[in-house]
């Protein structure tokens, strides 16, 4: 145990995701030894992020303004919505530059064990968006695990009566990988989702 404030800092850092007790100690001593200006920049960034960042009123993505950069971009298609679990999934899909529509961030996936039901996610907001004219396709890009699949199935059922096309991201083989190293589930999915060439 270290004295008062140093231990406080280590404890606080240790509460961050992905940081263990040893890592917290390393970061704490790095901060102690760092240039005061560097530390000032870090504390400013922490303060400002809590003050300025909010959630886009349309899609629920993190944003500095009322609308996020994607929702306020006039070049994005208004006919397609891609549904994801978290803001970080938006970033992942944006990196592909494949998708020209807009997003909807649910804020998680259905998981009764964690007490998360459909009402705890931004599903009502999604259905409200879909009630407006103009949207012709919804792409469900929830995680390919049990909870993500359950969420996608649930959404597909809610959207079906609206007469909007619903698609699910394909799961299958990683590009550049070897067929023989794929696990059975992935390979099985890839077979199910095969396409004509």
């Amino acid at each position, binding site marked *: 145990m270290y004295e008062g404030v140093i231990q406080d800092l280590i404890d606080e850092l240790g509460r961050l995701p992905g940081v263990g007790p040893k890592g917290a100690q390393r970061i704490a001593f790095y901060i102690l030894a760092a240039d005061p200006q560097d530390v000032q920049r870090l504390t400013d960034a922490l303060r400002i992020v809590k003050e300025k960042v909010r959630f886009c009123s349309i899609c629920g993505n993190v944003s500095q303004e009322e609308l996020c950069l994607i929702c306020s971009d006039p070049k994005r298609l208004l006919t397609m919505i891609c549904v994801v679990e978290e803001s970080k999934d938006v970033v992942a899909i944006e990196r592909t530059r494949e998708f020209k529509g807009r997003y909807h961030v649910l804020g998680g996936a*259905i*998981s*009764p*064990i964690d*007490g998360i*039901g*459909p*009402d705890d996610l931004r599903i009502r907001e999604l259905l409200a968006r879909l009630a407006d004219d103009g949207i012709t396709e919804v792409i469900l890009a929830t995680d390919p695990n*049990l*909870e993500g*699949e*359950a969420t996608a*199935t*649930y959404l597909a*059922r*809610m959207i079906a009566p609206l007469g909007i096309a619903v698609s699910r991201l394909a799961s299958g083989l990683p590009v550049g990988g070897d067929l023989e190293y794929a*696990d*059975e*589930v992935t390979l099985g999915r890839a077979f199910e989702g095969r396409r004509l060439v």
Partner: protein
Amino acid sequence: MDEAVPHLQVRQLTLQNFRNYDDLHLTFPGGVIAIVGSNGQGKTNIVEAIGYLSTLHSHRVASDIPLIRHDHTSAVIAAEVIRGDRALMVDIQLNTGRANQARINKVAVPRTREILGVLTAITFAPEDLAIVRGDPSERRAFLNDIATQQFPRLSGVMADYDRVLKQRNALLKSAGGARRSNLEAVSATLSVWDEQLVEFGTELMCARNELIVNLAPLVVSTYAEIAPHSEPLSLSYDDSLSRSEERPVTYDPDAVRKAFLQALDTKRQQELDRGITLVGPHRDELRLTLGRAPVKGYASHGESWSVALALRLGSYDLLARERATPVLILDDVFAELDTRRRRHLAERVADAPQAFITAAVDEDVPVDLVGCWLEVDKAEVTQRDR
């Protein structure tokens, strides 16, 4: 036995901080290996480690914690396994507080269950009496062990099924409190989990049915040899659907799926009342019958032992026929058996490419068959002549 089926053999075993062993290296020949020593010296720990590599759990305890040496945070079991003419290294690190890590040929695999199928072994131990006398969960665990050794991919299906079951039960429980007001919302979410429960559950039920169909004749004939004067043994699959009206006529996946969905529909109100899932492979039963009476509760002590032995030897034959001749492990059982059962077991041991037998004294081992004697004393293992 078919010539095309390869034999499995454990050639080397390393244990680090496993049970009472600090750092143990052993080399085994083929044939019969006797491990002898007084109680509490560590005989069973050696075969327990071999069994662990084949099923990913101990045959003695439900948790991994007791396997890790006191005051240590991890234990290692490593083995060199010979399959036919190929050698394969497999090891697993058991950890407290974080996930276990397994490797094949020193390459880490993403999930420990991927080492299933590398080493197949059948263990017969005093604990097996619970398969015959215990709750249905003991018999399901028995079926699961054989199924995952035969078809390792099923362990993934089982893990998914268990996860969906937990989610669905959590939802049913929370729905019980909510009631009427948002019953419609609950059933919309419930049906999503139903779909996944049925998908994984159907696969498990079809696999279990096939397993029992293949296993039954082998177990029944073995039992008739061990206990010729007993009533005939029979095995049947009592899946939870058959207890409701919707019994599938055949175990065709489509028929099972339909019957499963129908059964969930029928039980919905009951499930909501009780807050648990009432149909599915988690409520299956392997029914064991002698003549017309169930084994559990009716069979004598001797008959129960014979049934347990027949189940293990039948499984051994099934794996030997369909995959590779497994390693046979007999943990402290000769002392428990009468002369006839001993003789029968000894005959099987004589045919096994590799068999491990633990016993407290030499007399409890079929002495003439043993090719290698190991003496265990306070975690020291020494080879000796007869």
